[in-house]
């Protein structure tokens, strides 16, 4: 008896799983970039406040 041809599903499964992991890690990069921008802006704001007082 030959096993059924399910290789396409196997590729779909692994593709989807690694794709999800990749997208999740990519979302970190976006979050990190936004946080670094916020930090930069907040630090310059604090510096400005310090100069005023």
């Amino acid at each position: 008896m030959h096993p059924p041809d399910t290789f396409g599903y196997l590729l779909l499964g692994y593709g989807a799983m690694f794709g999800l992991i990749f997208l999740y890690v990519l979302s970190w990069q976006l979050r990190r970039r936004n946080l670094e921008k916020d930090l930069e802006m907040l630090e310059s704001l604090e510096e400005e406040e310090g100069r005023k007082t």
Partner: protein
Amino acid sequence: MSLSNRTLQILNVLTVLLLVVNTALIFLYAPLERTMGEVQRIFYFHVGVAWVGMAAFVVTLVAGVLYLRTGNLRWDRLGAASVEIGLLFTFLTIVSGSVWARPAWNTWWTWDPRLTTYTIMALIYIAYLMLRQGIDDPNRRARFAAVYGIVGFISVPITFFAIRIWRTIHPAVIGTGSETAQGGFDMTQPMVVVLLFSVATLSVLYVCLMANRLQLAKLAERVEQLKARILSA
């Protein structure tokens, strides 16, 4: 889990290498299963991500208890990061299971007790993240999240034992010889080796993702503290 940049880089590289070796073992070493064909190879990844996903929620439970005992926000960061990564593993389990189910059960999805409890568990932990978003005060947020993480954990053992408690079409992997295990199958020695290697690799992946996620959480906390300082000045 605070690691230096160098250690983190080594961990990242090690994780990628382990994933490559694991994939090679699954595709080239694990024997072909005769009834299901190639798609059965999804099983090694599916079982691994399911176990590690549930372990991630155990970490949140422990972190919640430790936060309530010590009041240290470090435990809150750990618990929150573990929920996020646990949810990633939960989605990976659902996706891989769904793709496997299509040729095996002739459907992408069915409201079987295991799949239903699994969905409820995922929704409970999605709500955990939503709850955190809704509270600004860090200490209040940490306290609520810790209690929620402890109470929400009830869904994890219910999901794990669903295949023993209710009549289900989902196969049991552990203790297939027992009367309560339905739809189980016997694994050959190479299958067991690949499964154990997968579980170990995915555990390392979890640790790696946690270490990176905690670094991001620290940065977010710095921004939050600075914002609060400027607003109060």
